[in-house]
């Protein structure tokens, strides 16, 4: 073959390849410029709705570090979908939850987002704030589907499509310190210990305690830890040496149990309060159990699963029936709340006869006082603010459902009301 014929062969091959693309399903033809459609009742539909089914995505973590949370959130959302479908669906459409487990691996999380994106209306669950941040530009720029992350970092605020449900960690911490000051004798000039995880969660919570310390004349003794640190002996020793009068912990359940247990053993008798991720009902069965029931409190954006509201009681009964072996924790509440917020937005969008992504986004912006049955009112009208600034204070209690009772009803302190996240 001479160079000439070789060149011809190459050109022919390229031409053939380009000709073939004429039948590619990706090719844009003239008549699908408007890919929206409508159903019999004149409701506009778009991505994520095919026939009579609305598909929602759930990017969860069932095999990684947030496995317990992911499992509870997902099972609660599946329960919600099942109940909605049993009651006839929304707008005459059935809901379908498409779940992908990313195991807290950035590559899998981004891949799963990309995979589901063309087929879903939005995401009712997205665990892992770094991954939400990774796709945020795409959500804002092109996809424009609603994403409800199961992460409460203020860094996620500001997008009209990525909406944090409930108070963010900084606001939660402000309310937690407010509780310590009003009810646990912490006063101006006192020292407050703050043990926090390196990373988004801990650092966001620390912003809250620094802000509150400045406003209320406290000084913060900071102790940064890594998620792999499980023994808090060194931190307790440091806090004791500094002479703290109360401790905030923004870490995981294990660290909280270790901190409270070690503090009790070394006679550091001060109140300890944790963010909502710093407790699991299983802890009460451990050696740290008695110390936890005595000195430990948990700040939470909603009432606990064992609350006395009718919605909570029904959810407990239904969830127990569906998953008799699984623990009832706050993940169930978070998952249920997110799914029902999405459902509420869908209902509003249906009333406005627009079930496209745009329609659902608009519908969510009109929801200003939604209560999924767990005490806190959610207001979604401002994308720059979290949907609520209220925090409930809970106390571990072995006999209660889900291991927690309400110490103080949901409410926002005056500092929290005046606080703007991200400032």
């Amino acid at each position, binding site marked *: 073959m001479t160079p000439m014929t070789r060149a011809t062969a190459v050109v022919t091959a390229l031409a053939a390849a380009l000709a073939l693309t004429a039948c590619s399903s990706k090719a844009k033809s003239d008549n699908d410029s408007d890919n929206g459609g409508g159903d019999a009742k004149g409701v506009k539909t778009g991505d994520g709705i095919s026939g009579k089914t609305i598909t929602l995505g759930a990017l969860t973590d069932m*095999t990684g570090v947030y496995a317990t949370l992911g499992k509870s959130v*997902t099972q609660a959302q599946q329960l919600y979908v099942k109940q909605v479908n049993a009651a006839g669906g929304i707008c005459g459409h059935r809901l379908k939850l498409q779940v992908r487990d990313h195991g807290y691996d*950035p590559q899998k999380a981004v891949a799963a987002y990309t995979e589901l994106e063309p087929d879903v209306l939005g995401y009712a669950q997205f665990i892992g704030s770094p991954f939400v941040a990774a796709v945020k530009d795409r959500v804002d720029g092109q996809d424009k589907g609603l994403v409800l992350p199961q992460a409460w970092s203020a860094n996620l605020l500001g997008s009209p499509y990525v909406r944090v449900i409930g108070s963010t960690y900084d606001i939660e911490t402000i309310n937690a310190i407010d509780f310590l000051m009003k009810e646990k004798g912490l006063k101006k000039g006192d020292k407050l210990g703050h043990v926090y995880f390196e990373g*988004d969660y801990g650092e966001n919570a620390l912003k809250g305690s620094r802000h509150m310390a400045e406003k209320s004349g406290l000084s913060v003794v900071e102790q940064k830890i890594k998620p792999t640190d499980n023994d808090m002996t060194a931190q307790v020793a440091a806090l004791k040496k500094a002479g703290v009068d109360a401790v905030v912990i923004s870490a995981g359940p294990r660290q909280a149990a270790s901190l409270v247990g070690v503090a009790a053993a070394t006679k550091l008798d001060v109140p300890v309060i944790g963010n909502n991720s710093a407790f699991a009902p299983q802890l009460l069965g451990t050696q740290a159990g008695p110390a936890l029931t005595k000195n430990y409190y948990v700040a939470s954006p909603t009432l606990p699963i064992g609350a006395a509201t009718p919605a909570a009681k029904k959810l407990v009964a239904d969830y127990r029936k569906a998953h008799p072996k699984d623990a009832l924790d706050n993940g169930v509440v978070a998952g249920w709340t997110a799914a029902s917020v999405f459902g509420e937005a869908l209902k509003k969008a249906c009333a406005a006869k627009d079930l496209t992504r745009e329609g659902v986004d608009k519908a969510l912006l009109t929801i200003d006082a939604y209560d999924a049955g767990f005490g806190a009112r959610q207001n979604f009208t401002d994308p720059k603010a979290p949907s609520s600034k209220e925090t409930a204070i809970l106390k571990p209690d072995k006999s209660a459902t889900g291991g927690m009772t309400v110490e103080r009803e949901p409410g926002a302190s005056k500092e929290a009301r005046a606080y703007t996240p991200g400032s």
Partner: protein
Amino acid sequence: MSEVPVSETRSPSGRRHPKRPRRLMPPRRLMRPRAVKRPSGRVAARTFLKRPRAYAWAAGSVLLLALPFYLDRFWLQAGLFAMAAAIGAIGINLLTGATGQLSMGHAFFLAVGAYGYCVFAGEGDGLTGLGLPTWLAAVLAVLLAGAAGGLFSPIAGRLRGAYLGIATLALIFIGQHVLFNAGDLTGGSNGRAVPPLSLFGLTFDDREVVVAAVPFGSAEKLWYAGLVLLLGCGLFARGVLRGRPGRALNAIRDHRVAAGVLGVPVARYRAGVFVLSSMYAGLAGVLLALVFQRTVPDYFGMTLSLEYLAMIVIGGLGSVAGAVAGAFLVSLLPQLLTRYSEALHLVSAPGTGGIAPGEASRYLYGAAVVAVVLFLPGGLISVAARRPRSIPGEEA
């Protein structure tokens, strides 16, 4: 460690060795030292075109070039992850496979490349950024990774095998600490946005460019960039491995003292290959960052380093094709298993109890690694290498 038969060490001392072949893909038998008189280029090309392998290459290339016109973004993205992984794997294969130097710090150099690119190219997002043209930033990021490798080379040149592995382990921990805490530079735990690459007026971002009626987003455009980079990296590494440096590296791996006696400057070669491998990792990091569109510190941990080691063990130590094959298997398998978890009946739907798809994909991945190590000790590439061939072990 000796995956390659000793034919390599039989070759004469470096000085009188034939020069590295200049052509792109010389017939294998032309690689025989000195004895064969080289035919002219035209003849070589003719022999080349007579072989079915040439047509397989041509068909493969056309297929790869056409894929962006058909595949979804998911597949293109998965392919791009695999290409980036392949570049990184080629790099670590030069170090671990060809030279026998174990490195656990590959993820660190990937991070240097990825974050280096962001810092050089980034501008106006509240973080430190130099705002350089993005192509320059990409080149500088690769050089930066090389420089980081160079800084480590006094250690890399002196330590061998598992000892270097332990030393490089430190890099991972230092790297993670810096990534999480140097907030102004790295954006902390939420990472920082990656500016899209711009080359000759073409920007690899999500603005749609319609080519032959197919809208091209970032994944489609990057696909071609990835192919070019992978091809370039593959050919360069192949050249290194087949030429004099490659023989020196293999000699160091197989018998360090003998290599030294033959006149190979052992420490210098070790340090040099460490720098080269870091630059490959840096380039892989840049490409990964461009695909992710955001760099997150969680990614560049211990697991990533282990994955790269798994890639070269599965693919085949010391060969470029092996590294590429291993990289594709290791980075695609988990994604495929997650995607098709519902169709595979051995797993239950997420949330219903039983084995979750994520777990199942890990089991299968583990089983694949064990199976390859048990039944294909030379890696995937040994399947291809079983065909009769004049010089065994020349596969590179």
